[in-house]
C-alpha cells in the first residue's frame, strides 16, 4: 500500500488538520472531529448536520458552508462517527430552530446517530430530526438486508435541504423536504478496482485485470456480482437500467449525478456521462441539471456511480440557490 499518509492510525487527524489549513472558511474541531462553518449561520435558522465514515471526500466536510451543511462529523475511515461526536455537532449548530441530521443508511451510522439524537434531545434539549438516505438500487431485497445503502442522493439532498434551511424554512418543512428528496433519488455503482483502507494495508478485495464489480457501495466492499469488463456503452446500461427500473423518471425534471469513486480520471467520467446521457435521452428522461465529478468517493476505488433525482420546480429552485462550499459552489 502506497499512500500520502504518515501513519494509518493518524490518517483522520492529519487529514482534518490539512483540511483546516486548506479552508480558512471552515472551522475544524480536531477533538470531536467536526467541521463547522467559520461563520455560523444566522440564529433562528434550522441547523443541518451530516456525517459518516471518512474516505468519501468531499462528502461530508466538503459540503459545509453557506447554502449547504452547518456541520460535518467525521468518523474513522469507512466507520461511522460515535454518538458523542455527533451530539457535539448537534448542540453546536442549534440556534434554537432545531437540527436535521442526514444519515446514510448503514447499520453503524443509523445506530450512532440515533444514540446521538437521544443524547442531544436529553441533554441540551435540542430538537433533532433525522432523515435516512437509502437510495442504492444494487441492494435488491431490502427486507432481507440492512436495507438499501445511502449513496449519491446524499449529495443532492444535502444541497437542496441546505438551501431550504438557509432561506429560513422551519424544522418540520425542512424535514419533510428531506424525506421527499430521499424517496425520490436512486443510485447504482460499479467498480474497476477495490479501494485500500489505510489501516488494513491492502485492497479490500482483489479483482482480476478483466473483471468489474457491479453494484458496489462506497466502502470498498465487493458488489452484488462480478462480470467481465465491457465497453463504456455497456457499462452505462448496467447503471441506467436498474435505476430506471426502480422508479419512473420520465414524468418530472431530473437532476443527475455521475459520480467518480475516487481514482477515476475526469476524462473517463465525462465519457461515461456521454453514454449515460444518451441512454436517458432514449428512455425519455429529461435531465434538467447534472453534475459530473468526484462527489462521494470510496478512497482510491476506480469506478463510478449514477444517481438520478426526480425533481420538480421547487427542488430545481433550491438546487439552483447559491451555495459556497469547498465541494459544490455556485451563485456565491
Amino acid at each position, binding site marked *: 500500500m502506497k499512500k500520502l499518509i504518515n501513519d494509518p492510525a493518524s490518517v483522520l487527524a492529519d487529514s482534518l488538520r490539512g483540511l483546516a489549513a486548506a479552508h480558512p472558511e471552515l472551522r475544524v474541531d480536531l477533538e470531536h472531529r467536526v467541521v463547522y462553518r467559520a461563520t455560523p449561520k444566522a440564529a433562528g435558522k434550522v441547523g443541518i448536520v451530516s456525517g459518516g*465514515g471518512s474516505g468519501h471526500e468531499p462528502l461530508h466536510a466538503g459540503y459545509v458552508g453557506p447554502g449547504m451543511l452547518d456541520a460535518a462529523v467525521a*468518523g*474513522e*475511515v*469507512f*466507520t*461511522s*462517527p*460515535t*454518538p*458523542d*461526536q455527533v451530539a457535539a455537532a448537534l448542540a453546536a449548530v442549534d440556534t434554537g430552530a432545531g437540527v436535521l441530521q442526514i444519515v446514510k443508511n*448503514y*447499520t*453503524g451510522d443509523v*445506530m*450512532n446517530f440515533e*444514540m446521538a439524537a437521544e443524547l442531544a434531545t436529553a441533554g441540551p434539549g435540542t430538537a433533532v430530526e433525522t432523515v435516512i438516505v437509502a437510495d442504492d438500487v*444494487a*441492494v*435488491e*431485497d431490502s427486507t*432481507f*438486508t*440492512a436495507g438499501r*445503502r445511502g449513496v449519491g442522493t446524499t449529495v443532492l439532498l444535502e444541497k437542496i435541504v441546505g438551501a431550504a434551511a438557509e432561506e429560513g424554512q422551519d424544522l418540520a418543512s425542512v424535514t419533510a423536504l428531506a424525506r421527499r428528496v430521499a424517496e425520490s433519488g436512486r443510485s447504482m455503482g460499479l467498480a474497476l478496482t477495490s479501494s485500500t*483502507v489505510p*489501516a*488494513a494495508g*491492502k485492497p*479490500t*478485495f482483489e479483482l482480476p485485470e478483466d473483471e468489474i464489480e457491479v*453494484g458496489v*457501495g462506497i*466502502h*470498498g*466492499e*465487493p458488489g*452484488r*456480482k462480478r462480470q467481465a469488463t465491457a465497453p463504456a456503452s455497456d457499462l452505462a446500461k448496467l447503471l441506467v437500467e436498474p435505476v430506471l427500473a426502480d422508479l419512473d423518471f420520465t414524468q418530472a425534471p431530473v437532476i443527475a449525478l455521475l459520480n467518480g469513486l475516487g481514482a477515476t480520471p475526469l476524462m473517463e467520467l465525462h465519457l461515461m456521462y456521454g453514454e449515460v446521457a444518451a441512454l436517458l435521452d432514449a428512455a425519455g428522461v429529461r435531465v434538467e441539471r447534472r453534475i459530473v465529478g468526484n462527489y462521494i468517493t470510496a478512497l482510491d476505488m476506480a469506478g463510478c456511480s449514477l444517481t438520478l433525482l426526480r425533481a420538480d420546480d421547487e427542488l430545481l429552485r433550491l438546487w439552483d440557490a447559491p451555495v459556497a462550499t469547498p465541494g459544490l459552489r455556485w451563485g456565491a
Partner: protein
Amino acid sequence: MADVSLEVLGAWLRGFAAAVAANRDQLTALDSAIGDADHGANLDRGMAAVVTALDARPAADAADLFARTGMALVSNVGGASGPLFGTFFLRIGAALGAATTVSAMELGAALHAGVSGVEVRGKAELGDKTMLDVLVPALDAWDAALDVPDSAPQLRNGAPSAASALSRSCSAAAARAAAAARDATAPLVARKGRASYLGERSVGHIDPGAASTALLFAALADALAE
C-alpha cells in the same frame, strides 16, 4: 472466595483487549471478505480505549467497571460494532449494579441483559449472520452448564472455590459453544450489517463480529480459569 471478583471481571476485559489486538488483522481480513475491512481496527481502537479507561482508577463496583467499558466503546469505535458492543457492556453493568463479586447465575443473567441490548439496538434476528449468532448459542451453553444436575449442586456446596468452579464450567461451555457458533456463521446468508449487501456471496465466510464475539467468550473462560 466463591464468586467472581471485580479483579477477575477486569482481567476478562483486559484479556479481551489483548485478544483483539492479537487478532486485529485476522478480524479485518474477515471484514474485507464481506464488509469494509475495518472491524479489527475498530474493535482494537475501542478496547485500547477501554484499557486506558480502566487504568485510570480501580473500579468501584461492577456497574462502574462495565459502564466505563461500554462508554469507552460507544465513544471510540463508531461503526456497527461500537454501539453494539458498547450497549452489551452498558447493559451488563446496569444488571450487576453495585455488586463487587458475582455468582455464575448473576453473571449469566447479566450476559443475557447484554444480549438483549444488542438485540434491541441492532434489530437483528438469529441466523442473520451477525455477532448475535454467537451471543445466543454461547448464552444457551452457559445456561445449560448452570443446570447440569449432577455437577451443579455438588459445586454449589463443595470446595471453597465451588461457585467460581461453576462460573468456570459455564464460561468454558460458553467459550466452546461460541467457537462452534462462530464457525457456523460461515454457511449463512447475511441479512444485517454490511455483509447483507453481498447476498448469496456472503456464504462461505465467517462473520467478523461473530469472530470477535468468540474471542470475548474465550477471554472470559481464560480469566475465570486463572
